[in-house]
């Protein structure tokens, strides 16, 4: 079982390397992280936080958009691409379970994601610490951001595989992936914000809003990293609501979502004739 998963993972890494996905993911993360750490250096001192913690706060807002995007870009082709190329039927005649195929892809894509995240955050950290050695105090926050980013990415890899299995066409899967990204990362928050404003402190804001935040892995990720860093949370717009939700709940959401999305993916891939 492990051997078969690793065989698929190795193949996927070869493919991702040749298709420049590794390079694209790393460059995206490094470029955006560096831009942010340069731009985010301005408020240092104002809040009394160290430079790296400030960078981590900006990286959190960036990663909420970027990590799901990179994860979906890597995963939307996973099943639909094999169907369209005609490689799936042969693969399925091998003594390998369908979930093992997905697991192999997941291992490879997660590894690439880790490389990209570490490269991006690492670059930002190096710049921050070089400019201000006191920034070392923020390493704890950076580590927290790193592993939660990987879990966030894994959740969206699972969503990508599920969409890819359901669409069975690369173009369809790409459309669904873009739709999911827009919906969960952009529109979801806008909708919540509009509802909170309209509700003006009513039942929605106190009861439904916290649950809605936890129900979306991207929001749970932001929430967890912001509540963990009290200093910057106060400066954030979402801070008020964030403080009302216990940290273990957002942590649970971050941990559970990858499992849920991967089970969804395995279920979507399990049915259907190739």
């Amino acid at each position, binding site marked *: 079982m492990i*051997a*078969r998963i*690793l*065989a*698929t993972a*190795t*193949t996927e890494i*070869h*493919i991702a390397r*040749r*298709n420049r996905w590794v390079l694209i993911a790393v460059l995206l993360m490094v470029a955006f992280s560096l831009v942010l750490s340069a731009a985010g250096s301005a408020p240092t001192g104002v809040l009394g936080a160290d430079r790296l913690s400030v960078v981590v706060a900006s990286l959190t807002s960036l990663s909420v958009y970027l990590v799901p995007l990179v994860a979906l870009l890597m995963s939307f082709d996973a099943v639909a691409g094999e169907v369209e*190329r*005609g*490689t799936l*039927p*042969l693969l*399925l*005649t*091998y*003594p*390998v*379970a369908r979930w093992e195929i997905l697991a192999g892809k997941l291992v490879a894509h997660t590894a690439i994601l880790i490389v990209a995240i570490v490269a991006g955050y690492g670059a930002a950290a190096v710049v921050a610490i070089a400019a201000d050695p006191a920034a070392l105090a923020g390493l704890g926050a950076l580590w927290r951001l790193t592993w939660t980013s990987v879990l966030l990415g894994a959740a969206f890899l699972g969503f990508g595989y599920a969409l890819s299995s359901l669409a069975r066409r690369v173009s369809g899967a790409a459309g669904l992936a873009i739709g999911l990204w827009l919906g969960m990362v952009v529109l979801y928050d806008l909708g919540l914000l509009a509802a909170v404003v309209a509700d003006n402190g009513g039942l929605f804001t106190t009861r439904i809003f916290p649950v809605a935040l936890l129900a979306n892995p991207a929001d749970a990720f932001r929430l967890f990293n912001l509540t963990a860093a009290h200093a910057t949370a106060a400066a954030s717009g979402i801070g008020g609501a964030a403080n009302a939700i216990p940290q273990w709940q957002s942590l649970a959401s971050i941990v559970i979502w990858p499992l849920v999305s991967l089970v969804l993916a395995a279920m979507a891939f399990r049915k259907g*004739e*190739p």
Partner: protein
Amino acid sequence: MTSTLTISRLTKAFGGVKALSDVSLAVAPGERVALLGHNGAGKSTLMKVILGLIAPDGGEISICGAAPGSAQARAQVAYLPENAAFHPALTGLEQITQYMRLRNLNPSGAMELLGRVGLAGAAKRRIGTYSKGMRQRVGLAQALIGQPRLLVLDEPTSGLDPVSRRDFYELLDGLAADGAAILLSSHALTEVEARTDRLLILSGGRMVAQGTLPDLRREAALPVAMHLSAINGYEGDILAALPGAIRVNGVLHLTCAQDEKLTTLARISALTDKIADLDVIPPSLEDIYSHFSRRDGQ
């Protein structure tokens, strides 16, 4: 001897299209069986059902005693799809390495395997740069991995040059000698006749004939053609002696049923001094094939 593959009364319809109706067959260990049939006859569908890629509507299939698509069956069956496709970014070696590891084999033999299908020189190039025949050979190489008890090959020689075809059938002979059962589909009648033990003919989803070529020849009972050249001036005599003969481009054509062959020849030999030459033309492979293939409509 128990069969490696046994199919009974298999049925499969796609919407209104009956792709397979009531198909039964068996393939014994060491037997090379060719599946023939017109485009759309159901050959590829039959193979996909055997592999468990498509669920049948009815009928029973057993592969070494296991159900199609079960882990036990998949461990013993190798498949070559028609138009075998691979990820263009992978090299031949990487692709075969993955397939060997999926079968729990040490991939150190991958290079040797690629050598057996003549791809040693291109093993480290991307499959995207391969020619059609080279891609087909990657497909053959993966079908040879391990010791499959059953090989299901969908048009394995399509895209191969004549020498590679011969090499391919030699590989098959070796596998069959080791006890593997082989079911292959093809449109190339002559090579199939020479290199397989038995023929199955599908037409419109039905099994219309099965047996060795001599069996089928006998069953079809197609007429034998005879071409006679008369010695100058005797043509009229011959036409009078052999009713039914007709003159085509200066040669006299005569056909007779299989069981009248000897009596007809006896009548011809009575005219020896008037005949310059005689050719006896048995029904060709194509004739026999189209006899069966057309029998069910189409």
